[in-house]
């Protein structure tokens, strides 16, 4: 019984930790499959967390808050597209610039809107879905936030969009060989821009999950490198949407296990556990070689001469 409770709790926590990572990684997947590495992810998730919270707090509606986050993320994706696609600015530096800008604007606006109060402002977050009665042994696993379910469903949606639709084919085409795509009559700039806007919106939802569902409040350390974890996960997932689920669950699982063992009184160097996904990714990169399955045109700005 002890063990069952422990495992149920672990699985439930794993799903919660994995949710923002799933959204973030799917967002990055859209960007990278179209040929753009979006290092703005860390800041866009932060912007999503902030915008979702601020809009929800001011309108009183969590759903409008979520919509606000989606719009903000889409706009940030569009700015990234303007810089890296239209102008052809170096993707690393412009992405980092977006991260710094999105973070700065969020911090600034938070102070303007909420002031410097001692007690951090909070909202009533999304409830967990009452799928099973509260006392059922499996209830902690099934009774998750709606956004967690949406996130898992989104993996299937993204798999379908990128793999099976015309739009997905266009994204892959401009990500693999923009010259050929252009010759075939595709507008490389427009397709990459759309991919970045969708990607930005997904990243922002990942951030908004934290404020609107999991925490109900906004703190300055809320994203704490989750965006960089997504950059790692996408390599780990070999740019395949379905693998994103496994990557996010494995990382979420390690994280949840570490938290649980700590509350049980085990003395663990948990900070070193937190480094694991990064170390694993560097090893994975070393073994596979990044260029093996990355989109061929990743990091290359396309110039129409």
């Amino acid at each position, binding site marked *: 019984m002890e063990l069952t409770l422990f495992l149920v709790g672990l699985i439930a926590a794993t799903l919660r930790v994995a949710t923002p990572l799933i959204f973030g990684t799917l967002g990055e997947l859209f960007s990278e499959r179209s040929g753009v590495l979006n290092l703005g992810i860390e800041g866009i998730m932060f912007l999503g967390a902030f915008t979702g919270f601020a809009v929800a707090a001011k309108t009183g509606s969590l759903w409008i808050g979520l919509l606000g986050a989606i719009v903000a993320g889409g706009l940030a994706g569009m700015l990234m597209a303007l810089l890296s696609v239209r102008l052809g600015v170096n993707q690393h530096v412009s992405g980092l610039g977006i991260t710094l800008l999105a973070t700065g604007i969020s911090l600034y606006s938070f102070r303007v809107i909420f002031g410097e109060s001692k007690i951090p402002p909070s909202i009533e977050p999304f409830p967990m879905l009452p799928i099973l009665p509260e006392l059922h042994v499996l209830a902690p696993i099934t009774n998750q936030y709606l956004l967690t379910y949406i996130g898992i469903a989104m993996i299937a949606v993204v798999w379908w969009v990128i793999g099976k639709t015309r739009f997905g084919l266009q994204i892959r085409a401009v990500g693999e060989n923009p010259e050929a795509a252009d010759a075939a009559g595709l507008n490389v700039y427009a397709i990459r821009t759309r991919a970045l806007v969708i990607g930005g919106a997904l990243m922002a939802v990942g951030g908004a999950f934290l404020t609107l569902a999991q925490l109900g409040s906004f703190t300055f350390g809320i994203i704490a490198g989750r965006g960089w974890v997504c950059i790692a996960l996408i390599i780990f997932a070999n740019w395949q949407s379905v693998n994103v689920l496994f990557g996010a669950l494995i990382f979420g699982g390690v994280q949840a296990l570490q938290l649980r063992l700590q509350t049980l009184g085990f003395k663990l160097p948990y900070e070193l556990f937190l480094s694991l996904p990064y170390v694993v990714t*560097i090893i994975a*990169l070393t073994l596979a070689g990044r260029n093996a399955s990355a989109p061929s045109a990743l990091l290359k700005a396309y110039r129409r001469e």
Partner: protein
Amino acid sequence: MLKYKIERAPAPVWMRTLIPLIAIPVTFLITSIIILLDGANPITAYYHFIISPLAGKASAIEVLVKSTPLLLTGAAVAFAFNSGYWNIGAEGQLYAGAIAAAWIGMTLKDVPPIIGIPAMVLGGFAGGMLWAFPSAILKVKLNVDEVVTTLLMNSIVLNVTSFLLNGPWRDPVSMWPQSPEIAAGTVFFKLIPRTRLHFGIILAVLIIIITWFVIKRTSFGLKMRAIGLSREGAHFAGIKVNKTVLTVALVSGGIAGIAGAGEVAGIHFHLIDAISDGLGYSGIIIATLGGLHPFGVGLAALFIGLIDTGAQTVARQMGVPVYLGDVVQSTLLLVTLSLFVLQNYRIRRVK
């Protein structure tokens, strides 16, 4: 009907030096929108931003204090970028340098400054180099993209720092997670008494001059720049590309590490979690703003140091959130990047 066509037309070289100067007013114009949203007057705000800090002696010195690590991270990033090695990891290398310096400062007990200070500098350099090593060796041996690995190394070192401060290195007498104070002989001496300005700035200026000399005046620098222009071209010209890139990457990490050592030995005297708070990322802004030229980097670092100080003045004087400084810095980066590209285009009327 009249039609306009955008076409590529490389701008003259002197344009490159003008661009940061054009970018600054453009940035101020853009960021004044969010100052207005806060109900403040942008002109007053910018007065406090860039004039006030220079008006008083204490705050002008503080600008130099803030610029000290920025000169080094800017130089580190520019050094790597010159040869096309995209070191995004100055932040992590700075932390590694700070850890190494804190260790030396804790280990050496009774040393005279003549030994203690060089030990800190070399320790910082070695720490940063060590942290840059995995990404560098993977790049040259297996062609693993350095952007992702240097970025991930940043996240790892943050966890290592917090592990050390909450565990083995935690100072038992302190309320905060910080390492014990470093030995007196390893503290960087003050340049002006009762200010925070320390020996680090002399070191930083010296390193700026050395990187300039290496990049512009030595055959090694010529190789670096050749690789930066075209890796294949450099290879065919007989340059040992891998060996050069490895050296550049390690030296770049080392310079960033010295910035970390300086923060420990000159400002905090402990290792703390927030030893940097983005100085390495600001280094990327500074390198870009300075056009990757060491002297440009020097000016850009002073300017960003001014903005960092100014943001605090604006916050104090007008109640505008201090994060305005971050917004201005990042906007300046994006505007400069855009202008560097746009200078190569002309709009021409075609019939």
